[in-house]
């Protein structure tokens, strides 16, 4: 699980250190910079997956093209460094400082510190040699993404330790590769789909339908959750002899009358999309923008409870942005009920001051209370009710 994200000079984020939990919620006004934190992680993932692309290409997230380095660096100052670092617990971290023409890659694993400056685009074929002498004598060869560790001794224990060090060193970039995203633009707009090749960030409806079609375990997992949330089955149907698969829901679980998902409410539709991405076996951490959209408050509550279970029982790390106090209240209620430990729900109030995004940690208590409350959601309603009641102060 990713435990911290450190970012500097990315879009409106001049500098931030954001702790991540099994469930992390970023809430705050529109345009405060919540999504920028998501996008920073995806830029780093882009670099790891495809460092050979030009620097500007890293800012094309697939579902959204943010422009290039100049558009994304804080204050558009291309002389500055744009840094993104991911931490796993206290001992593992991996980060890249991007500059206009090169990048400084660094990785820390306990007492091992790897660092290299590479040109951009980077072929990934350059190897940097390090030695590690704690508990043995080891040679580390690192290309900025992956490490090979060899023991200089032939003892079995030393060889095994070399394997463990390599696993540790490679675990951070592997974790970053397994980050997925559910952007705002999501859902299914056709009754049927045929499998398509998947891009590294599979977000189009055809790609997500392919994830559902190609993994026989995903549809039943989705169905279990849609029954819990909407009392509706989800199923797929492929007519024999065809490569076309229909996405279907039943109108009511008991009715057993299937209809096309595209004809169901859009709330159901986009929840199926999110669940498909969450249940993807490769997904370890997933960034979900506004999970509450198109959902009635009752369904938001049920969805929050399903998400809580997916985080705690299936160990999916869920990171949300939200504009819904209902969604956050539902998660807080899960804490109060003991379904979620307070430390498992990490909340940040995100604001923007003088063009800078600020992330303020809002600790959650065992009683399901949150420091600072949810007043940021109520500012509009407060102004309106004061007008209605003629409150002037």
């Amino acid at each position, binding site marked *: 699980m990713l435990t911290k994200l450190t970012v500097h000079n990315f879009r409106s984020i001049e500098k931030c250190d954001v702790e991540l939990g099994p469930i992390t919620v970023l809430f705050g006004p529109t345009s405060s910079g919540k999504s920028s934190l998501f996008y920073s992680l995806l830029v780093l993932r882009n670099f790891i997956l495809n460092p050979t692309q030009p620097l500007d290409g890293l800012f094309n997230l697939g579902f959204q093209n943010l422009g290039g380095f100049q558009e994304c660096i804080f204050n558009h100052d291309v002389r500055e460094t744009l840094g993104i670092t991911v931490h796993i617990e206290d001992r593992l971290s991996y980060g890249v400082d991007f500059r206009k023409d090169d990048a400084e890659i660094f990785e820390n694993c306990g007492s091992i510190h790897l660092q290299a400056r590479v040109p951009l685009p980077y072929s990934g074929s350059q190897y940097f040699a390090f030695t590690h002498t704690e508990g043995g004598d080891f040679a580390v060869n690192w290309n900025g993404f992956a490490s090979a560790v060899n023991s200089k001794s032939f003892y079995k224990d030393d060889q095994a330790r070399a394997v463990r060090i390599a696993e540790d060193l490679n675990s951070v970039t592997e974790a970053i590769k397994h980050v997925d995203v559910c952007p705002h633009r999501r859902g299914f707009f056709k009754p049927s789909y045929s499998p398509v090749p998947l891009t590294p960030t599979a977000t189009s409806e055809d790609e997500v339908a392919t994830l559902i079609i190609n993994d026989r375990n995903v549809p039943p997992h989705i169905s279990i959750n849609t029954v819990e949330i909407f009392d509706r089955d989800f199923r797929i149907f492929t007519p024999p002899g065809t490569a076309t698969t229909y996405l279907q829901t039943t109108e009511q679980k008991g009715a057993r009358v299937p209809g096309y998902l595209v004809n169901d409410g859009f709330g159901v539709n986009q929840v199926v999309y999110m669940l498909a991405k969450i249940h993807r076996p490769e997904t370890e951490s997933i960034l979900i923008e506004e999970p509450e959209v198109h959902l009635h408050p009752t369904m938001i509550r049920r969805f929050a409870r399903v998400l809580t279970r997916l985080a705690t029982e299936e160990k999916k790390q869920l990171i949300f942005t939200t504009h819904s106090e209902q969604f956050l209240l539902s998660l807080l209620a899960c804490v109060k009920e003991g379904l979620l430990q307070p430390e498992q729900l990490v909340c940040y109030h995100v604001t923007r001051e003088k063009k800078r995004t600020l992330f303020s940690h809002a600790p959650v208590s065992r009683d399901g209370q949150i420091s600072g*409350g949810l*007043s940021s959601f109520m500012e509009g309603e407060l102004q309106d009710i004061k007008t209605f009641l003629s409150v002037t102060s």
Partner: protein
Amino acid sequence: MAIFVINEWLSHDSSGENGAEAQRQALVVIQGLANSDHQIVVIEGSPFDQKSMALCKSSDISVVVIVKIYMTTIRVNSDRCVLLKAAKAAELPEDLAGAVKPDDHYLLRAQRSWPEAVLVTTDQPLREAVLRYGMKCLSREEFLARYF
């Protein structure tokens, strides 16, 4: 920073049953508390808590919005609301328990659980009993005048 125990007048005023002016003042109190350094002590499931929750179901949109503001800015705010479990709230000495109505015991238990807490009430006999016992108490009007 002060800590208050507020009895059910805040819910009644919020509901509008005590008139438009009282409802306006209830909103001012809720907003003022939310923006202040003060805290309130609430026993979970107490009559005060239950009445606040019940207002969520009001058919009057103004009432629903006021109580929503209370819930989101104070009740779930660990900086503004100290939640106590009824079983863990301080017990009342027999003489004090005998001097006030049983329905009001929860207020005094909340207050005695937080020694600096000030009871804010519209109930004059309750107020007299609390003051007689050396505990701090303000009337609604004193509370409004002093803090808002």
